[in-house]
């Protein structure tokens, strides 16, 4: 078992990754609560935006920050476009159908990335990673600080936004009952479009941060959505605050398992294991009944 001192760097890496997972998880939860869509293309959109930034910087020789801006705009645009074009058509379909449709977008984007960019080694070092400071013996980059800090700001900022603004109230209204909210005069499609837009922006920002923290390749960035999804599921796709803490736990457990030789190989299972445990715990007092119209959950 490693010593406490040896564990310390893994706390930093775990918190940084957890922060980005929280960022992504918040985007997924807000979108799901507003539109009923579990966006499985979140990671693919982020991956493509990160590759666009890399391409603009390295092939088109654009300055870094405008490239990052275009990348986030791309993520916002493609997500919004999907939501505006396909959202209404799928609005009344089952949640599973909606989620599967986003998987289609993810596959299209994966194929496009594979077609445009080969699987050559690339790196994207954000300007914030060129500076680091020490906490004890642990070097901390500003990207790690920003990843964690942005997770905090976005999660709690979004929670406040939903609570105190008109748009936030409309989103919460849609989450509760789409039909009733619509009859009250809330412009449903417009509110949903805002949710798609916010989700897209968050996927773009997450993609850029993860391309630095994890690496710039389409597949791994696309499937990092699983860790965020686990956090969102632990929060039952409802609470942003629970999503935040669940994301931190996922990041920390994965990181802290790394130096422990006996379990290091299995650390990628952490999101699944944690989500499974949480869901079993949450549903421990529920009974499954097969009455009435079919399968239903009854309170025990």
């Amino acid at each position: 078992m490693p010593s406490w001192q040896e564990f310390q760097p893994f706390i930093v890496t775990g918190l940084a990754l957890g922060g980005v997972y929280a960022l992504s998880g918040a985007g997924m939860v807000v979108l799901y609560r507003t539109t009923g869509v579990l966006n499985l293309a979140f990671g693919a959109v982020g991956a493509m935006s990160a590759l666009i930034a890399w391409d603009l910087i390295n092939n088109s020789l654009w300055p870094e920050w405008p490239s990052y801006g275009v990348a986030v705009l791309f993520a916002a645009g493609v997500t919004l476009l999907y939501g505006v074009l396909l959202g209404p058509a799928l609005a009344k379909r089952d949640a599973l159908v909606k989620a599967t449709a986003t998987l289609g977008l993810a596959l299209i984007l994966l194929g496009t990335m594979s077609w445009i960019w080969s699987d050559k080694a690339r790196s994207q070092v954000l300007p914030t990673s060129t500076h680091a400071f020490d906490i004890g013996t642990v070097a901390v980059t500003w990207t790690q600080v920003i990843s964690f800090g942005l997770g905090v700001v976005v999660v709690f900022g979004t929670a406040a936004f939903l609570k105190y603004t008109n748009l936030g109230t409309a989103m919460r209204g849609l989450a509760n009952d789409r039909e009733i909210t619509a009859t009250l005069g809330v412009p449903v499609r417009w509110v949903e479009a805002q949710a798609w837009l916010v989700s897209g922006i968050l996927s773009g920002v997450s993609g850029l941060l993860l391309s630095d923290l994890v690496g710039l390749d389409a597949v791994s960035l696309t499937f990092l959505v699983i860790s965020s999804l686990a956090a969102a599921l632990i929060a039952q796709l409802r609470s942003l605050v629970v999503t935040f803490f669940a994301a931190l736990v996922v990041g920390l457990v994965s990181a802290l398992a790394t130096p422990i030789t006996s379990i290091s190989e299995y650390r990628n299972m952490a999101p699944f294991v944690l989500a499974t445990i949480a869901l079993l715990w949450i549903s421990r007092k529920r009974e499954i009944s097969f009455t009435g119209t079919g399968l239903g959950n009854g309170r025990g």
Partner: protein
Amino acid sequence: MKRYFGSKRGRSVTTLIVVAAGLSLVVAACGGSGNKESNAGSVVDNPKCGNGNGQKPTGSPIKIGAIATKQPGTDFTDGENAAKAYFDCVNANGGVNGHPIQYIAETEQTDPAQNAALARKLIETEGVVGMAGGFSLIECDVNHSYYESKGVPVLNAGIAPSCWASPNSIPVNMGPRYSSDGAVQAVIRQDVDKIAFDQSNVPGTGYIAAGPKIVADAAGVPISESTDNVPIQDANSVAVRLTQQAGPNGGVILNFTPPEALKILQAAQQQGLEDKVKAWGCSTPCNTDFLAQALGAKWDGKLLVNAELNVTDFDGPDSELYRSVIAKYGQNVTGGLGSFSQMGYLMGEFMTNALETVKGDYTLQSVSEAVFNLKNQETDILCRPWYTGKAPLHIPNNVDWTTTPDSGHMVQKEDCFEISEDEPDIAKVRQIEAADPSLTGGAG
């Protein structure tokens, strides 16, 4: 709340974002089209291969076959494509004794039954008289018995252990195990007191890891071995773990594909870990300019990469011909200049050299005999002459360079050195070479 939906301001913002997204797609598509590796080093406009007479061959075609892996995430067809580029060059220069080479390149998706069927199709249905240019994850393991039963020598670039353990498999590369050995040797020469060896968690890791352990144990250097699932999702943590395992006077060795190795090295750099150990090493896949460009100057001279083949911009006649052939005939070589296309080029060149020695008809027997007689194949792409011969196993590429990044390119760091004879099969090969020095250009 209606003001959100119907306002002009709202519509214009949405329109702006949609337009920007469209523009982004266009920009990305345009930028991505130029991702082919740039040709470094001299080239000639009209490379001369084979007879070099510029005439069109008029004889009956000589059929050569190959099998390479092509599936999502693993595309080894650049070996075949580069071999074809060499054959096209030969065909544009008179062919072989007036015969054009007809290349039949198959692809497989790591399905054993498919591999077995393809080998039989090539030899029994297509009637190929030789096999060269193959590069597969499993083909050696699946088909080596078949090739042995047919007496067909296969010039390949291998991954599976059987590639270096069959009398009929003759690779131009040495594979991940011996290349990792070479990286371990280079790092041990830096006087490290411990080694942390890490590789991707894929089938065959036990076979590969056994090599570095043998080499490290023989040198009296403790070694810890680990695997990581790919794609790596927590490179920062992996980098920290490896530097902790190696310690301040230790060395870290990576056996990953370039993108995965890059993740770990970049994470180490960002966390200031590159100087926390004495040396960093990597097996052959890291020997690519793409990695050097992506890493940046901090790793110049610091990362020791085992190189089974020479740097692609080497100033030598065969390296120049290789670059020229790829430039003129290698339109399908998607990876451009690099280890994979170097291997394919060599397989094409060596097979052509064998074909040129055939007297009479080109049959499976006559070509097989010619291939088995290849010896002293000089090329500046390998450390020393390559050979085949009739032997229970073939590891003709067993002497390597060490390269290192330098200003975005890989350059030679150490001159040619022998892979350790502490490896049992390397020791056997050295005995074979000692028994017949003419194989590698010595007095026979």
